[in-house]
């Protein structure tokens, strides 16, 4: 029988073995005592001498027992059992410590994961840090991050020597269909070099070539992995298949990898962008532009060169380019623009929060060891080795770390899932958020390190204290000096909470303000959906006009529909085209002083459907929605206010530079302003066309219902299928959702900051609780004496609360000054509220102090309930 099995059998007959050891030692004592008697000692003296000779019987037993099993496995198990029992007996302490760790680790891991994905991790493209978006801007009109004109792009590309490559693209929607079904998909039209700039290879087939981007070449498309799977069942012979897309038969030349995405993970089709310097590519600025910096060229260097080129362009082509500038923006920054400041704030705070959580745990452990110092001394005097005591204490803190760490990791997982779910869709669609196991590994190490470090210091201090001293008085001298440090910690926690809460409250109030802005429409009970007619089937404008007229008429007669109409560019849903307007009877404007307006085209009844008031004149009627009638326009109130303040608007003729020929037409009505892209920007002057005069084939149908608008989606789908069976509808949303989406990024930032500051406030509360609990156990004797000589409970509570005053008040003061200094960072995210909003700066300190008071009250109440006799006797 090997040693291993012998030990195993002893482990099983543990109880018997224990009894035998007892007998064996008892026998030894008897023999020894008899020996002494033989040497001439009295019986009693002999027994005492024998016991003295045997020494510390507990220690003898313990070290003998240690030989029964493997190394220290036995003791570890015992330590863990003991520690668990200890934690169960002190649920307040255990919960506070575990909660601190879980909350601290969980929040910081979650924030770090999100920030890491959105801000730090390289985008999944070759040398992604060299990729920049190039924008055209008109600073004087506060028009930033705007699209690029094709003719400027060609000049930039020829003249610059800071970029390795430059590519333009445009995104759109079009219908993919076979004879059985059809689906509207997001597509990107791009120059051939965009895919090579991103360094992506199709998993089947090839990329398209420069030649295929020339007008007139055979139409080809690349499809996404998703479409390959869902439409073609992953057919490996897909390359060369011809499909209907956007109303034309196109050849599939390749399938893109499953994990590939560029700016929008919803894009399913890539096709060549047909523009060339030789042809007319449209007057406007409508392209997106990506460039790759040459190695060794900095962004500021490239920016300087591009600014110089833009200045030259303004001189060469003043009609088009006066006052226009060019801005470079890192691709990643372009994707996270609105959430970047709040994420950076949070990332900075993550380290602090984690430190706070660790400080809490340390302070709780310290308080606990102080309370247990006598117990430890007793254990030592009963023969527990010093190492044993230290190990016992360490086991407890490691156990806490393990539980807290596990909970924290779980919390982080949920938090990341929740954040991704709640994040604005365009954000999660443009960047993949993945959880990195390395981060969790790091967290596990961190939790272990924290507990060992903070567990070891008091453990060593606790075990070092002199036995006799600890038994006689409560040996606080060795560790009491640290209470100042702990008060500092608590103060810092309070300050941090004040800063974070102020930021969060400002964002909440700003968001609330946004939600109460009048958008200019009545969004309740309005359903919107998009219909994109394929240009190949609807070649003549009259077909498109007829389709929408009939659709609106039939939808209008559905049950539950109060009004229905359509608009080319739904407000609050991205950009609408803008162009110059000429007023009849005025001299032509000088370059840079033209009259500009946003252009929307509507069907009759749009204003009534959306609840936009008609302020003057009349709405379009069915008689206006006919191709060969004279041009007529409706303008917005902002247009009148800005350009026609002196004249009667209904007398005015205008010409809008929208197409090749733009005859003057009468203004027949003035309607109320509608906020344009977002609620926090002033409305822009707008000109409305009747659909027949600007017959877009992609229109958003708007329907006002008497009941739940979403219940109308299916009846409407059936109406459209009856008119054209191959025609899908897309983007079915209520108008409320459309508006809410415009501030989803603010919403997200607010949510992040609010939950984070909530976590920090909780931690601060635990911190305050920790120091006071410590101070109560440290002062038990003193408090007992006070109670004994007649201090009232109220007086005791006051005494304890006073100990919290300095850290809490100090923390609040520092926090307020910190917040006043830092909330400026949020300036760009605030709407209609000052970063120094007085209400916020009154409410937050009051809230923090209240929470701190509640946290402080618990140990204070415990102190007030001390039984003096028990306390004094215990000493």
């Amino acid at each position, binding site marked *: 029988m*090997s040693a291993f099995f012998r030990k195993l059998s002893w482990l099983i007959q543990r109880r018997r073995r224990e009894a035998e050891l007892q007998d064996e030692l008892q026998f030894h004592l008897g023999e020894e005592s008899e020996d002494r008697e033989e040497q001439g000692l009295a019986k009693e003296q002999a027994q005492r001498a024998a016991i003295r000779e045997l020494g510390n019987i507990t220690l003898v037993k313990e070290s003998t027992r240690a030989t029964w099993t493997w190394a220290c496995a036995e003791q570890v198990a015992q330590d863990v059992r003991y520690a668990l029992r200890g934690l169960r007996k002190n649920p307040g302490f255990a919960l506070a410590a575990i909660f601190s760790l879980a909350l601290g680790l969980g929040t910081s891991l979650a924030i770090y994961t999100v920030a890491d994905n959105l801000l730090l991790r390289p985008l999944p493209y070759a040398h992604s840090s060299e990729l920049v978006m190039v924008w055209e801007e008109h600073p004087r009109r506060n028009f930033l991050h705007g699209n690029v004109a094709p003719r400027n792009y060609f000049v930039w590309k020829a003249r610059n020597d800071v970029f390795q490559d430059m590519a333009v693209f445009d995104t759109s929607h079009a219908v993919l269909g076979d004879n059985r079904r059809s689906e509207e998909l997001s597509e990107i039209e791009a120059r051939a070099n965009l895919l090579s700039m991103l360094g992506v290879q199709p998993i089947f087939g090839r990329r398209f070539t420069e030649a295929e981007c020339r007008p007139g070449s055979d139409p080809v498309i690349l499809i996404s992995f998703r479409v390959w799977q869902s439409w073609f069942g992953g057919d490996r012979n897909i390359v060369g298949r011809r499909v209907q897309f956007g109303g034309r038969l196109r050849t599939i030349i390749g399938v893109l990898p499953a994990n590939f995405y560029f700016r929008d993970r919803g894009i399913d089709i890539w096709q060549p962008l047909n523009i060339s310097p030789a042809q007319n590519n449209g007057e406007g600025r409508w392209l997106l532009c990506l460039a790759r910096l040459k190695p060794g060229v900095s962004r500021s260097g490239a920016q300087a060169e591009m600014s110089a080129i833009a200045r030259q362009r303004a001189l060469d082509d003043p009609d088009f380019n006066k006052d226009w500038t060019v801005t470079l923006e890192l691709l990643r920054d372009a994707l996270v623009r609105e959430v970047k400041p709040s994420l950076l704030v949070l990332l900075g705070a993550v380290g602090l929060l984690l430190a706070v959580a660790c400080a809490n745990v340390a302070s709780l452990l310290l308080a606990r060891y102080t309370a247990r110092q006598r117990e430890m001394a007793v254990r030592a005097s009963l023969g527990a080795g010093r190492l044993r005591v230290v190990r016992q204490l360490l086991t407890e803190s490691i156990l806490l770390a393990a539980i807290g760490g596990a909970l924290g990791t779980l919390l982080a997982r949920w938090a990341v899932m929740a954040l991704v779910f709640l994040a604005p869709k365009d954000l999660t669609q443009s960047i993949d958020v993945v959880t990195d196991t390395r981060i969790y590994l790091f967290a596990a190490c961190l939790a272990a390190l924290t507990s060992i470090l903070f567990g070891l210091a008091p453990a060593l201090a606790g075990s070092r204290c002199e036995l006799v001293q600890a038994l006689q008085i409560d040996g606080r001298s060795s560790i009491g000096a640290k209470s100042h440090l702990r008060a500092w910690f608590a103060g810092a926690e309070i300050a941090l909470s004040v800063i974070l809460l102020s930021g969060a409250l400002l964002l909440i109030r700003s968001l609330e303000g946004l939600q109460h802005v009048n958008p200019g429409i009545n969004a309740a009970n309005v359903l919107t959906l998009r219909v994109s007619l394929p240009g190949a089937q609807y070649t003549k404008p009259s077909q498109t006009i007829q389709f929408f007229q009939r659709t609106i008429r039939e939808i209008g007669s559905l049950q539950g529909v109060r009004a229905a109409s359509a608009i080319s560019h739904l407000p609050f849903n991205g950009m609408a085209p803008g162009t110059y307007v000429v007023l009849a009877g005025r001299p032509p404007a000088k370059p840079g002083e033209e009259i500009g307006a946003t252009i929307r085209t509507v069907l009759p009844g749009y204003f009534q459907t959306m609840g936009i008031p008609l302020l003057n004149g009349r709405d379009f009627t069915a008689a206006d929605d006919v191709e060969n009638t004279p041009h007529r326009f409706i303008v917005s109130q902002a247009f009148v206010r800005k350009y026609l303040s002196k004249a009667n608007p209904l007398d005015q003729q205008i010409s809008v530079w929208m197409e090749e020929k733009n005859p003057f037409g009468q203004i027949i009505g003035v309607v109320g302003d509608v906020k344009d892209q977002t609620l926090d920007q002033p409305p822009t002057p707008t000109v409305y066309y009747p659909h027949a005069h600007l017959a877009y084939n992609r229109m958003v149908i708007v329907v006002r219902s008497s009941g739940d608008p979403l219940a109308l989606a299916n009846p409407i789908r059936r109406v459209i299928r009856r008119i054209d069976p191959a025609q899908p509808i897309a983007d079915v949303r209520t108008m409320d959702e459309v508006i809410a989406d415009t501030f989803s990024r603010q919403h997200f930032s607010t949510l992040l900051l609010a939950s984070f500051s909530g976590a920090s406030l909780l931690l601060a509360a635990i911190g305050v609780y920790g120091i006071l609990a410590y101070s109560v156990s440290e002062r038990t004797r003193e408090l007992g004496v006070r109670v004994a000589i007649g201090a009232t409970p109220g007086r005791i509570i006051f005494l304890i609360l006073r100990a919290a005053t300095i850290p809490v008040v100090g923390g609040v003061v520092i926090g307020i000054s910190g917040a006043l200094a830092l909330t400026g960072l949020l300036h760009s995210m605030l709407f209609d509220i000052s970063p120094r909003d007085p209400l916020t700066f009154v409410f937050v300190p009051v809230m923090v102090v209240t929470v701190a008071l509640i946290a402080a009250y618990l140990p204070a109440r415990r102190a007030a309930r001390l039984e003096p006799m028990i306390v004094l006797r215990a000493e």
Partner: protein
Amino acid sequence: MSRNLLSRLDFLQGTLDVLILRTLLAGPTHGHAVAKHIQRTSEDLLQVETGSLYPALHRLEAKGWIAAAWELSDKGKRAKYYRLTRLGRKQLVIEQSKWQAFSRAMGLVLSPVDQEA
């Protein structure tokens, strides 16, 4: 060299083991007798602490070098008797030759000085 000094010296690692094995060579006996025997035969120079004796006995038992059984002592009390196993006998030979070689080496280095003194 005073007895006091020696009694406070810890046994070198493994020393006690070989002493116990050697003691049990004479026949099975209990822990107390092992300690007394070592003390007596070393002319009271070696004092076996109880706190080391029993862990050592149990350790040797775990290794299988000695075996234990409950028997009646010569005074008629139940006692745990240890006896040398075959494995223990072999181990004793190994340990003994190791110690003899060690003590001879120590003697060779130390004896000239000793003799002069």
